[in-house]
């Protein structure tokens, strides 16, 4: 065995590799890491009346002692959980159907399930208003057959929930279907062969194989929902409001960037928690 010193060619190739990596890493540092640090620093160093900025958790004390902020955080969490629950309840059967059904109907359902992906949120929001809003299509139809109007979910916390569920169906279904790809037909048939009925089959054979996908769905949708803006802004109530519109209003209308940063930091902490959940789920899957 002989070891050769690295040639000049290899060295320059290493340099090019380093440069190629440096660009995205630099961008990441500049566009993501730096704003986070700067935001954290500002949130933790509130400006005093005399202009100094000593370290103090005062902003966070203010956030967590303000009933309005807390109810906004509460409604955000509520929206996230309800949306997530509905998403799983709707998308798991849909994904199971798409994975195991054959034929033309399944192809149609697949297209339908992917459709929301191509509709911008703002158009979705206005479609929602026209259909489910006051005197919308549903009301008109009910009226035509002499029934009372619905209590419109528009401008209630259910408005964003319905919009967000619709908006998130494609991604959720895609993730779940790809996860279900890991379940072989033979494994399913073998389970039926030894006596598993559909529910048992789902619980003991299918679900354990798609846990990772479910975890990915949970973290992805939670991350997406926490930072959702358009749908809560257009469809949701003015008060309490979700963190997205709340931050925007605090920053833009109230001109209080420090408080907006504090809200952003709190939001980020929740997102980090789900981020960690995601990383762990993926890592656990890799470990298998």
């Amino acid at each position, binding site marked *: 065995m002989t070891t050769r010193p690295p040639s000049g060619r290899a060295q320059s190739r290493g340099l090019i590799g380093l440069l190629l990596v440096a660009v995205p890493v630099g961008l990441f540092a500049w566009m993501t890491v730096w704003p986070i640090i700067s935001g954290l620093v500002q949130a933790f160093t509130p400006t005093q009346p005399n202009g100094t900025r000593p370290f103090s958790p005062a902003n966070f004390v203010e956030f967590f002692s303000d009933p309005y902020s807390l109810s906004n955080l509460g409604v955000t969490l509520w929206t996230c959980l309800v949306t997530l629950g509905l998403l799983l309840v709707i998308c798991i059967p849909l994904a199971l159907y798409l994975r195991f059904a054959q034929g033309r109907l399944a192809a149609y359902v697949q297209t339908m399930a992917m459709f929301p992906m191509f509709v911008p949120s703002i158009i979705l929001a206005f479609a929602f208003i026209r259909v489910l809003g006051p005197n919308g299509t549903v009301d008109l139809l009910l009226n035509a057959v002499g029934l009372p109007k619905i209590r419109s979910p528009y401008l209630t916390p259910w408005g964003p929930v319905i919009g967000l569920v619709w908006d998130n169906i494609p991604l959720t279904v895609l993730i779940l279907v790809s996860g279900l790809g890991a379940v*072989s037909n033979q*494994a399913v*048939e*073998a*389970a039926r*062969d*030894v006596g598993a009925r559909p529910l048992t089959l789902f619980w003991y054979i299918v679900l354990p194989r798609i846990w990772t996908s479910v975890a990915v769905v949970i973290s992805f949708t939670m991350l997406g929902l926490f930072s959702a803006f358009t749908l809560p802004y257009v469809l949701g109530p003015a008060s309490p409001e979700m963190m997205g519109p709340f931050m925007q209003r605090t920053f833009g209308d109230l001109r209080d960037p420090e408080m907006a940063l504090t809200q952003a930091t709190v939001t980020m902490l929740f997102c980090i928690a789900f981020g960690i959940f995601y990383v762990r789920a993926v890592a656990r899957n890799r470990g298998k």
Partner: protein
Amino acid sequence: MSKLTIADVSKIFSTTVAVDTFSLDVADGELVCLLGPSGSGKSTLLRMIGGFETPSSGSIRIDDEEVIHLPPEKRPTGMVFQSHALWTHMNVFQNLAFGLKLRRRPKAEIKERVEAVLDLVGLKGYGSRMTTQLSGGQQQRVALARSLVLEPKILLLDEPFASLDQHLRERLREEVRDIQQRLKITTLFVTHGQDEALALADRIVVMRDGRVEQVARPDMVYREPATPFVAGFIGTMNLIDGTVANGTFSRASFSVPLPVADGPATLAIRPEALSLTAGGQGIIHRVTDYGTHGLVDIDLPDGTRIKSMISDAKAFAAGQSVDLKPTAISAYRDNAVIYRTR
């Protein structure tokens, strides 16, 4: 204990007729091999017995009880798939125990039965292994054990060893035979390997395009194939199309006495039933020496190639002209036997 009756079963997938009015009786404790080329409907038939496909028509009875309307989970059948059928998130013990747990057997009984069957398939002590840590052969043993532990009335195996290498396949099929004989379990075994069928089966069902071509004991399928298709499918066979006139079959310069009515015929001669003598119309194309015997390819003047098995490969050489003397022949016309030497 259990017999299987399949009567006039057909399965039509939109345009393909996968199984065509198939009938078969399998006696208690019998091992029947379904043999046929790819696409002949073997898997489809097995899946209909297991409940994974619904027949388009016909009836399937187990111990005289109609099972056609039962879903797989309610049928007294156990199926072993070709591959990828183990539950990879469970260990070996859990894979075997799952069916028993669904039947709410007591813990002690589950443990006892799982261990007994692990012992039976030669995997004693493998209970805590994850299935992904097993070799291909071990995985198929687990799949077999998983079906056996539930003591099914009918065991169905769909090319269970097709993904394994030749050597392992031979060993496992012998084990399956031993286990089957010990448990006296009625078994249907799908394969497209004729040697597997010949080695395993009490009876062989040769299938072609979804229909039964012949049902017979292995030696009968080999010695007295009912149709030219079976003759050509099992073992090596020379099939020569020609015409019969005045009690003589002829094809090009090759002729054999054949006491049947005049008309077209297909002659079937095993290589081992065709002896060679020097000088004649056939030209030797190649001689392959297998040590124990030799295989000679002979070209007739019209280009027909014929195989002959000889005991001494050194006796003939390529380019030599030879005469062909069949010692045993069968002849077919309209897909049926018209003559067979005793």
